[in-house]
């Protein structure tokens, strides 16, 4: 797992936040992960993912035993391909920065070669099970809002059936390969789903926030914060993001009515807060536009700072010294949501922004 960090949290205009949340139909499955975002038919579920943002993999399976799945693979193109071997490799970037010279032009990646490599691997797999393999690659074209993508569509038959697309995006400099895979008899279903999936797929966010959406958790996090850890369990989802010594943690519990039979929402916040919130003041607050809940603001104590220091692997001094956390119940979905931020300066606005972006259910109840 790689953890990268950058500086500064950038406030986001509210309009952008609202628009990005309302562009999907509620019944569809929305997936957001490491800047990759797409929709699929209802009840499809994320079954495999990687934590890295530079290169990674996502797999989303259809419900039941149909065997259809959507796969997305991405990799940052061009950069970091040359390993540091000579003194020139070390000094050149610094000299360029000093004399304000532009970065050397990286040639666009060879999409066809990349795709052929992938299809060759699939062909090898098919030949192992003594099946014929045929693939079709369509010619490259430019697409996207400002022609930022160079893309090529492909399809294959053999062992299974698949339809997909490969592209390179100039904005995020990623090569993305996305495909819908199924069995031989699924050709119609593959075509229908591929058009929705590939049409909705985007590899970067146009705002300063990335959408993170899996299962019923749907939240927007500043791009500067990188995914540090995750917990995906039945009934409990947790995503933790780090940026230097600062942290954002988003958590969701299912079966809220059962939890709230034994605990009050204040007790549950205190018990699950990242820092020790023993007897901290917890007050009622409007956590987001839809629900009222409770929130607490505290100073981070030394013991918790050490815990945070360990997570940040000691690269991020000074550590966060202010904690703000809020929790609310979404009665429509019977779920409890918690957003926590640990920042260097007192910044409850960040917590409120993240909490506001959390789309726990459709409609409004407050």
């Amino acid at each position, binding site marked *: 797992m790689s953890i990268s960090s950058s500086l500064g949290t950038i406030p986001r205009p509210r309009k952008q936040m609202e628009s990005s949340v309302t562009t999907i139909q509620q019944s569809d499955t929305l997936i957001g992960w490491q800047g990759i975002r797409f929709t699929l038919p209802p009840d499809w*579920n994320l079954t495999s993912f990687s934590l890295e943002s530079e290169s990674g993999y996502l797999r989303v399976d259809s*419900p039941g035993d149909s065997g259809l799945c959507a796969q997305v693979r991405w990799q940052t193109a061009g950069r970091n391909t040359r390993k540091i071997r000579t003194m020139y490799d070390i000094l050149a970037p610094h000299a360029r920065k000093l004399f304000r010279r532009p970065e050397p032009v990286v040639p666009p990646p060879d999409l066809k070669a990349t795709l052929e490599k992938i299809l060759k691997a699939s062909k090898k797999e098919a030949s192992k099970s003594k099946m014929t393999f045929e693939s079709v690659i369509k010619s490259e074209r430019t697409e996207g809002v400002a022609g930022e993508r160079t893309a090529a569509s492909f399809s294959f038959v053999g062992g299974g059936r698949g339809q997909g697309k490969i592209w390179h995006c100039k904005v995020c400099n990623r090569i993305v390969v996305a495909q819908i895979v199924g069995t031989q008899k699924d050709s119609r279903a593959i075509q229908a789903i591929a058009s929705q999936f590939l049409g909705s797929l985007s590899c970067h966010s146009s705002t300063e926030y990335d959408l993170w959406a899996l299962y019923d958790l749907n939240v927007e996090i500043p791009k500067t914060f990188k995914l540090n850890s995750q917990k995906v369990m*039945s009934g409990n989802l947790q995503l933790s993001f780090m940026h230097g010594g600062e942290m954002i943690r988003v958590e969701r519990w299912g079966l809220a009515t059962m939890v709230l039979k034994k605990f009050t929402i204040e007790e549950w916040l205190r018990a699950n807060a990242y820092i020790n919130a023993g007897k901290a003041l917890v007050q009622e607050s409007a956590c987001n536009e839809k629900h009222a809940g409770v929130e607490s603001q505290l100073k981070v104590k030394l013991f918790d700072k050490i815990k945070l220091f360990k997570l940040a692997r000691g690269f991020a001094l000074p550590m966060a010294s202010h904690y703000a956390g809020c929790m609310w119940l979404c009665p429509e979905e019977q779920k409890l949501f918690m957003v926590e931020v640990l920042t260097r300066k007192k910044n409850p606005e960040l917590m409120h922004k993240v909490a506001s972006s959390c789309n726990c259910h459709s409609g409004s109840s407050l």
Partner: protein
Amino acid sequence: MLLRPVHNSLITVEEKEDGEIILHIPMKEKVGFLTKLLAKCVQLPTEKRVELDEVGSFVWKLCDGSNTLESVVQKVGREYKMNRREAEVSTTTFMEMLIQRNFIAFYKKTRKGG
């Protein structure tokens, strides 16, 4: 997913006021001379009690042989607002546990003459 879970008929069920269920599982008869002798001297329990929580009780009530595993998953998901995957994972895990302890069994409805 077309299998139908059904209770072990030896288990008796007690329902609490809040709808939660207590299972009474009869203990196996003691074998061996020493155990029998000990059972006469000390009163050994004749049954085990297992208390199920709200969701467990809900699933137990559905395991009456009339519902398929698929329909149990759907009903759990609908009742507790879980998405499909969450309901599937939690229900099948719970049922695996019940099967290991011989509390339930699965049967498949076959067509006449099939």
